[in-house]
Every structure is written in structure tokens, then in C-alpha cells.
């Protein structure tokens, strides 16, 4: 019985801790809720934790600087552990119980599963799964994200490869390294088509599955084709293994990491093997000399002294700053509901985040927020830009596919 009492007492304390402060807040009338469905305990949790840290800091900063036209912005964070059923349950809770007008969804599986339901429910979503098809408002009118799509970023990398190529005797050669899942395969079709159009030769694909323990076989296979560049679609944890193996094999190929692979942790995890590799990224790295970075660095140093800022943290800020801008517009129009927020986002014309992200434009016909990114190189353990904004035209050929 004593054991039982102890357990109940522990539970009571936790519950009291969690509900006590909640009830204080619940009384406030002017609170604008926004959902965050994110992986904080699953396979992508290192990414999710940095993202949510950025989002919550941005929320705090916004609330300290006038809020949403005086109203408090409140993020409701739910951990989905990168599991689809838990993601769906979390979504139901956010929409049915918490009545959020919109939310941020991280995991691809959850985004895909909920895509149809989101349209039916009419809930604004900003997502971390940058798929081309979510950019077509004819199919997904409520889906927005503050970045070019994976496909566009892969094409930006190709464009950069082509424009910086100096050897006129032959075309540059590229290979694609990716895991065998929706995320890995998403870019292939459009990238290869685009490569053919601009004159980049594509070598045999190399499938490197998660979790990556060793990529020597695939890299050796790739090396038979001897490509000048290799485009890695992966995550930092897995991509680091690829770079380490490549260094051990002494490959001459230059590696270009995609957005989810190109993080600060890639530098530390790869133990120096990432040195001299490239990455394509639309978000300014933490501490970059752009006007919008000042408040982020100040907030981070004030609220998280001793921790390192990351570009995922900055991405978190960008997501919430843009969301807040839309909420302000919707609130001013007296339309603080999903349709109002959607319409507000659709009015973004070259919305400037202070250089944190390329200027964002959404229209009711086109949800490609931007089609520009920069190429960075890792030099001395830092991400340094080696190009200005590489921008793609808003062509219909690759739209929504």
C-alpha cells in the first residue's frame, strides 16, 4: 500500500506542476494558439529539439515585443516521436480539443497522412517536409512553408554546379545518394530531368539506407563512375557516416548536402570529414552577418547561455516569425481563423525576414514561398557562403510535381 501511496503522490505532484500554471494562463482571453507537432523523442529528435527551441524563443521574443497586436502567442507543442498514429492523435487533439487555427508539422509521414484531412478540416499548416506537391494550392490550399522545396533546392545545387563549371571539354558529372524512402526519392525525377536540360551528366544512383552504419560499398560503386559531385539526401547523423567513409576512401568527388543533412552536427559528427564539402541551404546559418540575425543571437545568448546556436534553431525562428506576421495581418483584418490566416499568407509579397531566408511570396495560385538558396562550404568548422542567392525561375514545368 505504501508503494501505491508513493506512486500516487508522485503523479499528483507532476499533475499539480503541469495543471497549476496552465489554469492561470487559461483565464487570459487574448491568447492566440498555434500547434507544433514535432519529434522530440524519436529518430529525428535532435533536429526537432533545436527546431522547437527556435520556435519557442521566437514566440517569447514576439510576446516580449508586443505580441500579435497585443495578444499573446502561445505554441502548444506535442511530441509525435516520428510515429504516424501518434502524429494523427496529436493532430486530433490540437484541432478538436485545443482548437488551434493552424499548426506546424515536422514528420513527413504525418504530413502525408494528414494532407487530405487538413484540406477537409481547413487548418493552416506550415511544414518541415518540403515536398513539391504541397506547393500547389489547387490541391493543398492550406499548406505553406518558408523554404524552397527539396526538389527546388536540388535543382539550385545543379544550377550552381553548372554555372561554376569551368571545363568546357565535358559536362560535370553528378551522382545521387539517398535513403530508400519517400524523402530520399522525392527529388530524383525532377532533378534528373533538369540535369539533362542544363547539361549535367547523372551517374548511377546509390541507395544508402537509414540508419547508416557503412557506405563504403555504395561509395566504391559510385567511384567507378567517378563523378565530380555527389548530392546527399540524408540527415546529419547518417550523412556524417557517408562523409567519413568518403574521406577514408580518399574520393575526389565533391559532396553537396541537402538541407536536412547540412547542419552544424554534421561538422562535429563527421570528425573533420565534412571539411571542404558543400551544402545547399535557404536559411542563414546561426550568427551570419544579416540584419535579422541580431535579435536571434541576442535572445539565444540571453536565454541559453553556454549552448551553441544552430541553423535549425534559426529555421525555427523563421517559421514562427513568418507565422506571426500572418497572424498579425489576419488579426488586423478581424479574421483570426484558418481562412483568414491563409488569406494573410497569400498576401506575402517578397516578405523580408531580414535576410534570414530568401524573400517570401505566396499567392493563391502558387505556394512556392521562395525558389532561392545559397551554397555554403564548410571551412574551418564553419559554414561559409560560396555563392550569392542562386535563384530558379518560377516555371510551371516543375510546379507541384
Amino acid at each position, binding site marked *: 500500500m505504501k508503494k501505491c501511496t508513493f506512486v500516487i503522490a508522485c503523479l499528483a505532484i*507532476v*499533475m499539480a*506542476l*503541469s*495543471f*497549476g*500554471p*496552465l489554469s492561470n*494562463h487559461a483565464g487570459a482571453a487574448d491568447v492566440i494558439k498555434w500547434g507544433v507537432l514535432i519529434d*522530440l*523523442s524519436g529518430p529525428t*529528435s535532435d533536429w526537432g*529539439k533545436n527546431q*522547437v*527551441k527556435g520556435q*519557442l524563443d521566437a*514566440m*517569447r521574443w514576439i510576446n516580449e515585443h508586443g505580441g500579435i497586436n497585443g495578444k499573446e502567442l*502561445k*505554441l*502548444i*507543442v*506535442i*511530441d509525435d*516521436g516520428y*510515429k*504516424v*498514429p501518434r502524429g*494523427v*492523435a*496529436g493532430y*486530433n*487533439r490540437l484541432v*478538436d*480539443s485545443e482548437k488551434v487555427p493552424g499548426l506546424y508539422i515536422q514528420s*513527413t*509521414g504525418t504530413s*502525408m*497522412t*494528414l*494532407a*487530405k*484531412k487538413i484540406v477537409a478540416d481547413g487548418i493552416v499548416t506550415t511544414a518541415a517536409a518540403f515536398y513539391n506537391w504541397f506547393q500547389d494550392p489547387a490541391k493543398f490550399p492550406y499548406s505553406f512553408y518558408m523554404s524552397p522545396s527539396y526538389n527546388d533546392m536540388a535543382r539550385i545545387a545543379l544550377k550552381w554546379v553548372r554555372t561554376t563549371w569551368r571545363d568546357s571539354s565535358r559536362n560535370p558529372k553528378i551522382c545521387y545518394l539517398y535513403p*530508400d*524512402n*519517400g524523402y*530520399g*526519392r522525392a527529388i530524383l525525377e525532377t532533378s534528373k530531368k533538369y540535369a539533362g536540360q542544363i547539361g549535367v551528366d547523372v551517374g548511377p544512383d546509390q541507395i544508402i539506407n537509414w540508419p547508416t552504419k557503412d557506405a563504403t560499398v555504395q561509395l566504391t560503386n559510385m567511384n567507378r563512375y567517378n563523378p565530380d559531385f555527389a548530392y546527399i539526401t540524408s540527415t546529419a547523423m547518417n550523412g556524417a557516416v557517408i562523409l567519413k567513409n568518403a574521406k577514408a576512401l580518399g574520393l575526389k568527388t565533391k559532396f553537396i548536402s541537402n538541407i536536412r543533412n547540412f547542419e552544424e552536427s554534421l561538422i562535429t559528427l563527421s570528425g573533420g570529414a565534412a571539411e571542404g564539402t558543400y551544402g545547399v541551404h535557404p536559411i542563414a546559418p546561426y550568427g551570419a552577418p544579416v540584419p535579422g540575425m541580431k535579435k536571434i543571437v541576442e535572445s539565444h545568448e540571453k*536565454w541559453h547561455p553556454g549552448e551553441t546556436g544552430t541553423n535549425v534553431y534559426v529555421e525555427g525562428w523563421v517559421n514562427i516569425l513568418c507565422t506571426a506576421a500572418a497572424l498579425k495581418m489576419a488579426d488586423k483584418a478581424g479574421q483570426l481563423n484558418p481562412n483568414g490566416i491563409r488569406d494573410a499568407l497569400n498576401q506575402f509579397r517578397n516578405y523580408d525576414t531580414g535576410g534570414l531566408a530568401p524573400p517570401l511570396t505566396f499567392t493563391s495560385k502558387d505556394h512556392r514561398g521562395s525558389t532561392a538558396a545559397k551554397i555554403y562550404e564548410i571551412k574551418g568548422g564553419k559554414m561559409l557562403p560560396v555563392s550569392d542567392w542562386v535563384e530558379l525561375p518560377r516555371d510551371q514545368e516543375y510546379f507541384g510535381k
Partner: protein
Amino acid sequence: MPAGLYHENYRSDERIFQTWFVRIWVIAFLIACVLFPFFGSEYMISTMIEVGIAIIACHGLNLLTGFTGQISLGHAAFMGVGAYTCSILVGQAGVPFIVALFCAGFVTALVGMIFGIPSLRLRGLYLAMATIAAQFIIEFTIRRWDNLTGGVEGMYVDPGTLGPFHFDDRIQLYYLTFVLAAAVTMATKNIVRSRSGRAFVAIRDRYLAAEVIGVNLFKYRLMSFAVSSFFAGIAGALMAQYLEVITHESFTIIQSVDYLAMCIIGGLGHMLGGFFGVGFWFILERLLEVVNTALNSAYPDHVTWFVSIREIVFGLVIILFLIFEPDGLAARWRTIRAYWKLWPFSY
């Protein structure tokens, strides 16, 4: 007049409802389930659909692991087979939903039997490994059979219809799940108290002795796999209806482990195990989520502190159950019931 339960023959010993008291409670429970959508919120109804699906899946797994002693770590993959079979039959072949639902069960049973064949030679951990193989092979097939399953992009599930019912409506899906969960529970109960059920238990307790007394090991092991997979298939088809989009990520090994954990918590080899395990699991999960979200909102600076609470609690619960309550909540329930039966004159 005899006090307490007094059985004079096997028929009464094997009765489903041992006393009128139990019967009343079960009927009350069923009525509560039927009335639930009238006062439950939309979120609660969604949760109850998940609970119903998990109960169907857990009955299947319990039959295989709890009653027959064959560890399976591929249960979620079998659910995936059911989900895809049903969705493909409805969406691409135009088969009526209710037919497709049972076809899903039969196809999954067939697949389960194929992966159950090694059970003749393999036992314990080795069989667990063979079923992990099933998990990966099925996941791989789903991922790569593009033109049938939609590959890595997944597929949209056409909502099932049955006469005037459309199961994209949550309340109607709830009733479908409820009816099927009740039917599966009845079926499991009846299998367990039949000749096959006794054969299953005999195989679990001592397969050599079972073989000596004339139990056909291969037949019954395979039968156990088939029935278990049939239920998994039905559960999977319902899950597809619930999720509305299915991808290879919807049925991962982590889910398989979760179902096994639910069975262990509830009590392997107890009919009530499925209910208790699933109930406990979902209540704990949702409670932790509420606590977690509240803590996150209240202390946003320390959001990363609380996220591990869920994982820690779940890990701890499974370890503690294995140590202190290896027979699960069902056994504890019996103890509690026995105590109250004699109360206040317990000895």
C-alpha cells in the same frame, strides 16, 4: 443453496459468463460503449477507435504469443498487409468494403501462415527473429511494389461504405470498430475454450508433452499464426480507414513492439489481457501527453527536459511489469476480485 461458484460439469466450468453479476457488468459495459459517441468529444471518439483497433490486434497477438507461446515481432507488418489488401481491393478493384475487409483478413492469414512455417523448427528467440524478418520483408515489399502500393509515397484509402454507412465519418467508424472488436473478442474467447485453444495452451506449456498426447504441433502452430494474422488483417484494414492515408511508415517494428508490450502489461494468456493492456497503454499515453504538453506550455524554456518523460515512463512500466507483475494486469485483477468477493471476511 451452494455459496460461491460450484461447477458440477465441464459445460458449466467453461461457461463464458460464470455468474449473472458478470453478465450484467458486460452488458452495462456494452451499453456504455454504444452510448459513448453521444457524450464523447470528437477527440475521445478518435481515441476510442484507436483503442478498438488495438484491442483487435492485441487479441490476435495474445492468441499467438500468450496462448500458443510463439513470440511475434511482426504483428504491425501483418496489420500493414491487411491495410493494403483492403485499401487496394476497395480502391483499385472496386470490391465492396465489407468483402474487402474479410479478404484482408484471409490474405493476411495466408501471409501469416507462410511466415509461420519456420515455427515448426524455430522456438523462442529464434522464432522472434524469423518474425522480425517478416516485418522487414513486408515493409520492403510495400516500399518497392510501387504500382500496387504507391511505394514510398503511400496511398490514399477510399472510405469504406456499407449500405447507408460511410466510414469516413468518425462516429460510424467507431461503431464498426466496436462491432468488430466485440466479434473478435467473442471469437477469441470461443477459440480459447475449444479443442484448438486447449491444444494451443498445451503447446505453449510443453510442446513435447503436447506432441506425445497427440497434438499436431505443425497444424496448431500454423493455425495459431493464421488466426492471429486474420485478426491483425482486420485491425490493419480498420487502421487504414482511420488513418485515411497509409505509407510503409505506418506499420513499423516499433508498433509491433508496442503491441507486444500492451499484451505483456495486460497479461499474456488471459482473455482480459488485451483490454487491460490496451486500456492501460492508452490512458498512460494520453495522460503523459497532457502532462507533457501542459509542462511544455508552462515552462517553454525547458521543453527538452520533459520530452523524455514518456519514453522513461513507458520503459519503466514494462520493466516493472516484467519484474513485479509478469502475469500482467489481468492477474492483478483476479487478485483484486478474489479479495472483494470475500470482503469483509477475507482470511
